[in-house]
């Protein structure tokens, strides 16, 4: 009964919102799977169902603001800088995009197989192994994955096209939907980071 009330309440709230902000009236609602453990991993919490807006309104943007990471020794430090136009990377071919492919004679890494540390992916462990061939990352092997999968993938980095790069900028647009991130990525990257640290020349 409570569930029906809650979702009805959300519908009413949304309908009111829709009435005042749009021509058409549709319906929308949010649900948070808390009582059951999600099929997508994780343990249940006792968080209440929190209505989330179906339309995200972004706060007033600061132009050209990028959060950069500080160089000082303190853990967890974040430095926010506003780059001047001269220092903002341009997205023209004349500039050097940060992630353009390069053909190098000596690779960044020493050839071999390096094992990363075991990282906590919140609902399981992740541990990866990096295989370096020709100085570059050629293969990734999962030694541990939530539910202990062992997987690998061959990375073919031949003949890469030029891809446009530029500094990210805060957008002022109101958007209908927001696309987010997932948890297991963090642990994967911690483990892979450790593996590749060992492989560095």
């Amino acid at each position, binding site marked *: 009964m409570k569930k029906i009330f809650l979702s009805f309440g959300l519908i009413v709230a949304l309908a009111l919102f829709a009435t005042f902000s749009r021509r058409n009236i549709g319906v929308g*609602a949010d*649900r948070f799977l808390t009582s059951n453990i999600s099929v997508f991993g994780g*343990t249940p919490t006792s968080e209440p169902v929190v209505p989330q807006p179906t339309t995200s309104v972004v706060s007033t943007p600061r132009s050209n603001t990028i959060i950069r990471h500080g160089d000082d020794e303190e853990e967890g430090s974040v430095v926010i800088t506003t780059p001047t136009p001269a220092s903002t990377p341009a997205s023209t071919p004349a500039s050097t995009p940060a992630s353009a492919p390069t053909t190098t004679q000596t690779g960044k890494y020493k050839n071999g197989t390096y094992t990363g540390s075991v990282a906590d992916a919140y609902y399981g462990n992740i541990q990866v192994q990096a295989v370096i061939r020709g100085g570059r990352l050629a293969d990734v092997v999962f030694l541990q994955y*939530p539910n202990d999968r062992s*997987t690998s993938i061959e990375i073919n980095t031949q003949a890469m096209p030029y891809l446009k790069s530029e500094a*990210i900028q805060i957008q002022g*647009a109101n958007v209908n939907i927001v*696309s987010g991130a*997932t948890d297991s*990525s963090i642990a994967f990257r911690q483990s892979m980071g450790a593996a590749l640290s060992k492989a560095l020349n």
Partner: protein
Amino acid sequence: MGMPITIEIVDSSATPDSLEKVFKYFEHVDEKFSTYKDTSEIMSINRGELKESEWSDEMREVFKLSEELKQATNGYFDIKKPDGSRDPSGLVKGWSIRNAAKILEKDGFKNFYVDASGDIEVSGRNAEGEKWSVGIRNPFNRDQIVKVVYLDGEETRGMATSGTYIRGQHIYNPHQAGPLEDIVSLTVVGPNVFEADKFATPAFAMGREGIYFIEKQPNLEGYMIDKDGIGTETTGFDKYTKNA
């Protein structure tokens, strides 16, 4: 850790029941595929309690799709664990969102979206009659958007983002960063959320090379953000960044 689901139907014929049906579908998927529920079908199969002839059609379909993805990713994606048990969670997410959208289509709705944990499938247009706009979160500040993608809701309906984020008080620590923590976000846009999602995780796992992996896929476009706040697009990505 639950999974937040948001559904919006623009068509005026929609009712609360229309939504309830889709939420019920997600609960059904959870009951069947959750590896955290002893009573789920997948756990019964893993315990050897069900003969193959007793597997449900949905389970068979997921296993078949998993095998296809395993081939497509050279074995990287594999639902089978060393002990022989299976965990299809990585595939079920995009698959179930796609199916939820199909339920709405079958019920005659043309303009809607389904968002589960930031993986999205859209159809038609938004309430203003314009393309659905989807913001990509700033990986360094979840309250900000750094890129807006416009999905036409016809040929392009799916979007998935893999990435890291600043969670609670745990701020990204540069001293723990390794070489493959070079990228912090990867977004994939495609014909539907299942296509987008199934390649988003392997591509993200490749670090800087991942965007090239997406570039090679003929029906996908992508956007990567690295740890220095540099965004890189696949060559066709810019057709999605204009609301035209």
